[in-house]
C-alpha cells in the first residue's frame, strides 16, 4: 500500500504530466471493485475495494479507488501547469 504522501505526490505528478485530467467528472459511479486498474495508483481495484468510475465530460472513463479519487479531485483544481 502506497503511503498517503507518496500517493498524493504520484497523483500530482500525473496531473502535471497530463496523465490525469484537470476537469470535473460529468457523472461518478460508486460501487464495488470489478478488477480494473486505478488511473491514479495503477493498482488493481479488487472486489473488497470501492471503485469510483468517472465519466469525463468529453467522453472517456477513468477508474479509481475511492481514496485515490478523493485525492485526485482534491489536488487537480489547485495544480498549476
Amino acid at each position: 500500500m502506497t503511503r498517503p504522501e507518496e500517493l498524493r505526490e504520484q497523483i500530482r505528478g500525473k496531473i502535471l504530466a497530463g496523465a490525469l485530467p484537470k476537469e470535473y467528472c460529468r457523472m461518478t459511479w460508486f460501487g464495488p471493485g470489478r478488477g480494473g486498474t486505478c488511473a491514479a495508483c495503477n493498482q488493481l481495484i479488487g472486489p473488497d475495494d470501492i471503485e469510483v468510475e468517472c465519466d469525463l465530460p468529453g467522453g472517456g472513463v477513468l477508474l479509481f479507488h475511492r481514496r485515490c479519487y478523493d485525492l485526485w479531485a482534491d489536488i487537480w483544481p489547485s495544480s498549476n501547469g
Partner: protein
Amino acid sequence: MPFTVVVIDDDPQWHELIAYALRPASDTLTIVGNERGGMAGLALVRRERPDIVITDLMMPDLDGVALTRHIRCELPGTRVILISSSIEQAYQLMASDSGADAYVSKSVLFDSLLAAVWDVIRRRFSGGSWPNPVDPVELQKPSLP
C-alpha cells in the same frame, strides 16, 4: 445554512439507512423529507427545492431515471444521486443519459454515500473555494452569486 436533502425510495427501510449513513454530516446536511414513490417524490422536490435528491433507481410509478429528467429540467441547480441494489446495462445507459450526477450501489452505500454527496456538492459549487471534502465538518454552504 446546511445543504438540504430529499430521499425517495419505495422501501422506507432505506430512508432510515440513508439517514444513518448521512448522520456523521448532520451539521451540514439536513434531510427535509422522504417519499416512497417517484410521483410523490417529485411533488416533494418541487415543494422543498432541495440542494440534493437521493433517489432509488427502480420505483413503480416514476422511476429514478424519469424523475431525474424532471428535476434536471425544472430545478437545474439540484444535484441528483441515484441508488440501486443492482443495475442492468440498459438501466446504466439510461442513468448515464438522465443527467444524474452520481450513482451509488446500495452494496457500498454506507462507505460511499457521504463521499458521493461531497463529490456532487464540490462539482455543483466548483467555482468556490472548498475545504477538503473528506473533512465534512468544515464544509459550509457558500453564498451563491
